[in-house]
């Protein structure tokens, strides 16, 4: 996204402009962050690890939706169902064929990508609201299949997935899952960030900014839109696969249109089209209900508000989305940039 740059932040070459790490400090900061992250399981309790794991899974899914909606400008209201396709693929492979995550996770990604390609077909002719409708239809049709293909998916009861073993190492604790999930999340984020710098990423952005103009300068609209759908659903599938292994019980209620809306909220509150934004958004939306719950539990001893928790969650969730869109349309990523720019020039900001 066109983030305004602080004064004095100029570049002399394309390479410098396109670099992932603009300064040595930012590279060091990210390395330090990853190192700290690697030691988190040693100090954090199971509850916090559980939350962080959910954040990591949401991050993979959010990066996927960001490729489709943020980079390419195609709205999807079916992301939750694509995640479901991944979860069910991994779940079925694990329970019926006894496949390990080394096989089941990529397979989940591929299966979701194929389904994404299928439901991305209408994007050839339609866009904007109409595409949102087509993906919404995909959401409902897939939900129906999760429920009705009972011999495979277990119907309303769903599936129960055993704890997996990866290359002979049993992944049976939150800490072990933490390393698996964070590794995948880091790969996914690096992939999304670098995709933006390739010719494919450029084509995506060209389509988002003005599809007809992109068509005229020789971008094959259909091929690239389909590619965006496939990549985005691949990410969704991986996220779904991780979710299946981690939460163990999967059923159709977990992949409703509400999940799709949650993911849209993540990338919008984070900042559309920004990889950093999708990261912020995924963490924010995942932690929001938990933080709310803790706050309400704490306040509950003084006020009689415990029984309106679901209502309060809906109201605050809606309010946040609306306020962000009205006040800070470029999301948390923009806030982060503004804070950075402020301190960069402090105390001589002007």
């Amino acid at each position: 996204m066109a983030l305004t740059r602080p004064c004095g932040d100029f570049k002399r070459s394309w390479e410098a402009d396109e670099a992932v790490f603009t300064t040595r400090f930012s590279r060091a900061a990210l390395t330090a962050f990853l190192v700290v992250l690697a030691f988190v399981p040693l100090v954090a309790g199971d509850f916090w690890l559980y939350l962080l794991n959910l954040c990591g899974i949401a991050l993979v899914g959010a990066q996927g939706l960001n490729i489709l909606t943020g980079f390419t400008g195609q709205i999807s209201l079916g992301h939750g169902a694509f995640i479901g396709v991944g979860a069910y693929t991994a779940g079925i492979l694990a329970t019926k064929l006894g496949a390990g995550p080394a096989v089941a996770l990529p397979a989940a990604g591929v299966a979701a990508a194929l389904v994404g390609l299928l439901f991305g077909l209408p994007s050839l002719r339609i866009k904007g609201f109409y595409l949102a409708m087509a993906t919404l239809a995909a959401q409902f049709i897939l939900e129906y299949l999760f429920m009705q293909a009972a011999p495979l998916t277990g119907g309303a009861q769903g599936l129960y997935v055993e704890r997996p073993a990866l290359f002979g190492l049993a992944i049976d604790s939150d800490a072990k899952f933490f390393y698996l999930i964070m590794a995948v999340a880091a790969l996914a984020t690096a992939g999304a960030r670098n995709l933006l710098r390739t010719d494919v990423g450029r084509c995506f952005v060209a389509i988002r900014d003005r599809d007809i103009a992109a068509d005229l300068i020789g971008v094959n609209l259909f091929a690239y839109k389909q590619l965006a759908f496939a990549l985005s659903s691949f990410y969704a599938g991986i996220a779904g696969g991780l979710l299946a292994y981690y939460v163990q019980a999967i059923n159709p209620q977990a992949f409703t249109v509400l999940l799709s809306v949650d993911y849209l909220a993540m990338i919008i509150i984070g900042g559309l089209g920004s990889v950093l934004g999708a990261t912020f958004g995924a963490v924010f939306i995942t932690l929001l209900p938990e933080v709310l719950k803790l706050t309400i539990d704490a306040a509950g001893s003084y006020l009689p508000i415990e029984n309106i928790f679901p209502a309060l969650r809906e109201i605050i969730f809606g309010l946040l989305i609306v306020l962000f869109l009205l006040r800070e349309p470029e999301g948390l990523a923009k806030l982060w940039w503004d804070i950075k720019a402020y301190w960069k020039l402090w105390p001589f900001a002007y």
Partner: protein
Amino acid sequence: MRFFLQLVVTGIAVGSIYALIALGFVLIYKSTRIINFAQGELVLIGAFTAFAFLSQAGLPPALALPLTVVVAVVLGFTVERLLLRPMLGEPVIAVIMVTLGLAGILKGSARAIWGSVNRPFPDIFPALSLRLFDVAIPGPFLWGCLIAGACLVAFTLFFRFSTWGVTMRAAANHQAAALSIGIDVRRVFALSWAIAAAVAALGGVLLGAINVIDMNLGAIGLKVFPVVILGGLDSIPGAILGGLLIGILENLSGGFIEPWVGGGVKAVAPFVVLLLILLVRPYGLFGTREIERL
């Protein structure tokens, strides 16, 4: 044959309520180009407001229903002024997300006020029954048909003859041109939200008369999408015809396909149709075909 007719007739009856709710959606889209994902929640709020006036405050229907409409109109004005007006000219996705956020706020508020339990709705419509092709139509459905029909006629007349109707059509047709001849486009937007909210409240009251009301009433907002895509996003006759067709389709697929492949077909069939229409004829039956220039 009798089973078929029964399905068709009840389909028309349900469809007329879909049509009524879709009417509000189309009205907003037509004049403001805003896709309203909160239409179902406006229905929810309308139904519960009527419930509050009728059952909780014990007012007679002749007083409660106009009051409900007034509340809905005020709600429509407020929502437009606070949330949607700042979003004019923003990308489609941002506007869609704002209405999704609005849906959350409305639904959460309703849940906080009235709780998540089923509420029986009082019988307010005088008993009425009709037998058509040897099929009995229940009273509330009949009232739904009548009110939807009345709204259709009223809106057609409103858009053709009243100054406000013509103004709204002008604003919908070309915003800049309407502004240049002195039309207050902002007021048009506010008015269309107010009318849409009022129509949704009526739909909510009708739904309440058919069944009990609960927090899942808002789900009907999603039913609106196949209806408006089929009829054409910006066509009022399209919304009416689309509503009836989707109602019939839903009932027929529920009656004839569901016994073979199991439950849920009734809910998913409209969306299969939606996908097919999008592939073949995205602008629907009566919608304006959009031509895009660089």
